[in-house]
């Protein structure tokens, strides 16, 4: 008798999703789907608003990565204004984006995924969370909290708020950095370095415990998309995009924000509200690709900071050619945190970082503009059209989760086939399905978070959709 297993909602994600596994008569997985069940609608309700309001409006999409939305939106606005922003504004925005990446990666790695890594995929769900980590390894728990606090404090120092700062605007930033704030950030760096070193060493020590997960967590070869700076250097804020094939060869390079819609398309599947991005030249789904930390480390030629470059060299020993297993998103995230700490220090020591010239002003000089940035989860693109008065007529956002959507669904099928047996359902099997999704750290409806207990319900349905059994936790 065939069955359907539903995991709804998937826990320890940004937002809410659902996993559905279709089993055949023998209880073997035949198909799997990852469904995003929420609708946002920011593109629609922003119509009619002035374009210069868009950064603050769009940042509300996400409570975890608002800086990336601020940045992409501000850059789209700057394309409409047709201005170049001051050098110092670019540098300050880079610090904010790095700080956000650090705190977001810390949340993903330490709060959401380290329970699986530390306590095991088969551990009791009642202990598989940050409290369980605190009890089992307080040192790792403190490192995670320290890194998240580090990133949040930098954002707060720059923009006066930890979340949804209005400091980044079309044209630059609203306020220059003060010497006092610069010194405060510099003073936090040694502890942050200690914490990430500790986390990297610990992670590498437990990596051999997960050969099965490494082999089955979305490890199918795919293309990768990510931002690079000059000379192919790692970049998160101001660069162009490169797409590489599964063997690492560049398919497209130098892609600008203006090019994005010409190069990439979005497909729709009936089971999810999230779209599926693809490279138009190859069509859908053949042109599907992955974005995010794994993609960025596979694409860049070098990180550009000493310690992160050493870690990149080690990371590239994990596989021959581009690292394909999505399990290694975790490793890539830690390398990016290390880079972020080094890069923040480098930028803060820039001679012009305290310059008061941080904002360009202009009116509407174009009726269309696009901007992108690298969010913690991957490439983020904002595309706007305005009328002559600068009022929004149309907008489109392409988010990282949509670009990883096809890979997540393929990965779900891969891991479910490897671990799930319908006739002997166990928590650890289903947790591996969730854990595979968590490696991508998808942002489903980032600004929405459940209050209280997030129930996980697994439903076994018969061929006529009758409920056979339910497991709750």
């Amino acid at each position, binding site marked *: 008798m065939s069955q359907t297993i539903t995991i709804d909602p998937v826990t320890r994600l940004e937002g809410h999703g659902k996993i559905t596994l279709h089993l055949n008569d023998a209880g073997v997985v035949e198909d799997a789907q990852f469904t995003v069940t929420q609708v946002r609608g920011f593109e629609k309700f922003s119509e009619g608003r002035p374009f210069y309001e868009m950064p603050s409006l769009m940042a509300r999409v996400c409570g975890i990565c608002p800086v990336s939305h601020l940045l992409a939106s501000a850059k789209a606005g700057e394309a409409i204004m047709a201005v170049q922003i001051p050098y110092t504004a670019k540098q300050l925005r880079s610090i904010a984006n790095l700080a956000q990446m650090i705190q977001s990666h810390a949340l993903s790695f330490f709060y959401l995924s380290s329970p699986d890594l530390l306590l095991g995929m088969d551990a009791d769900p009642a202990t598989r969370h*940050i*409290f369980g980590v605190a009890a089992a390894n*307080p040192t790792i728990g403190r490192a995670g*909290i320290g890194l998240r606090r580090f990133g949040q404090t930098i954002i707060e120092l720059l923009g006066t708020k930890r979340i949804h700062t209005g400091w980044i605007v079309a044209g630059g930033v609203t306020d220059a950095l003060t010497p006092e704030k610069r010194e405060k950030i510099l003073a936090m760096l040694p502890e942050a370095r200690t914490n990430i070193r500790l986390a990297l060493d610990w992670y590498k020590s437990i990596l051999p415990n997960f050969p099965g997960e490494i082999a089955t967590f979305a490890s199918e070869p795919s293309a990768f998309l990510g931002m690079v700076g000059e000379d192919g250097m790692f970049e998160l804020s101001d660069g162009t995009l490169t797409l590489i094939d599964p063997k690492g060869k560049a398919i497209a390079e130098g892609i600008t924000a203006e090019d994005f819609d010409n190069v990439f398309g979005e497909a729709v599947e009936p089971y999810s509200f999230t779209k599926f991005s693809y490279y138009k030249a190859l069509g859908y789904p053949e042109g599907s690709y992955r974005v995010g930390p794994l993609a960025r480390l596979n694409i860049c030629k070098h990180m550009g900071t000493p310690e992160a470059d050493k870690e990149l060299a080690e990371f590239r020993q994990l596989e021959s050619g581009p690292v394909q297993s999505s399990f290694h998103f975790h490793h890539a995230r830690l390398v990016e945190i290390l880079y972020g700490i080094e890069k923040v220090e480098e930028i803060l020591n820039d001679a012009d970082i305290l310059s008061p010239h941080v904002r360009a002003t202009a009116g509407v000089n174009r009726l269309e503009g696009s901007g992108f940035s690298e969010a913690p989860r991957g490439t983020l693109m904002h595309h706007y059209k305005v009328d002559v008065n600068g009022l929004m007529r149309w907008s489109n956002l392409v988010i990282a989760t949509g670009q990883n959507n096809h890979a997540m669904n393929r990965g779900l099928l891969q891991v479910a086939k490897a671990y799930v047996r319908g006739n002997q359902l166990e928590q650890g099997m289903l947790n591996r399905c969730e854990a595979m999704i968590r490696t991508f750290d998808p942002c489903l409806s980032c600004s929405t978070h459940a209050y209280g*207990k997030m129930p996980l319900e697994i439903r076994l349905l018969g061929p006529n959709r009758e409920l056979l059994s339910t497991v709750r936790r």
Partner: protein
Amino acid sequence: MTQSTHTRCLILACGNTSRGDDGAAWRLVEMAAIAGLPETVEIIAQQQWTPELAADLAEADSVLFVDCRLDGAPGTVTRTTVEAAETAPNYLSHHTDAAGLLRLTAELYGTRPRRADLLLICGESLGYTEALTPVVENALPIALDLLMEWVQGQ
């Protein structure tokens, strides 16, 4: 387990100022700041109490959690002692509650504030507005008195 030897007092406000009475805690701490607080008092207002606040709690001598809830007569204000959770909460997202935060602080840092209290304001509506309902608005002076009394007692 040790108790903090710091002199810092922490006031942790929780709520969403876009959801009616859920913003009561934010309004209250704004009023307290305007009324004037000693330099040793630090206010942190967030939409959720997140685990990283444990690092702040580890450095605090005393803490007052301020929150809004709906399970009581609207406008009622209470201040009670709060203890660390005896068992780990079933934590599956990014936030926790006062008792959970105290437990996390103890497990991670081996210390806890000497004193922890919870000031609760019962709300009437969590609708999509930045305004408080009149009954909660009228209760804020009472809540402010309780908050200031707590500060003076530290």
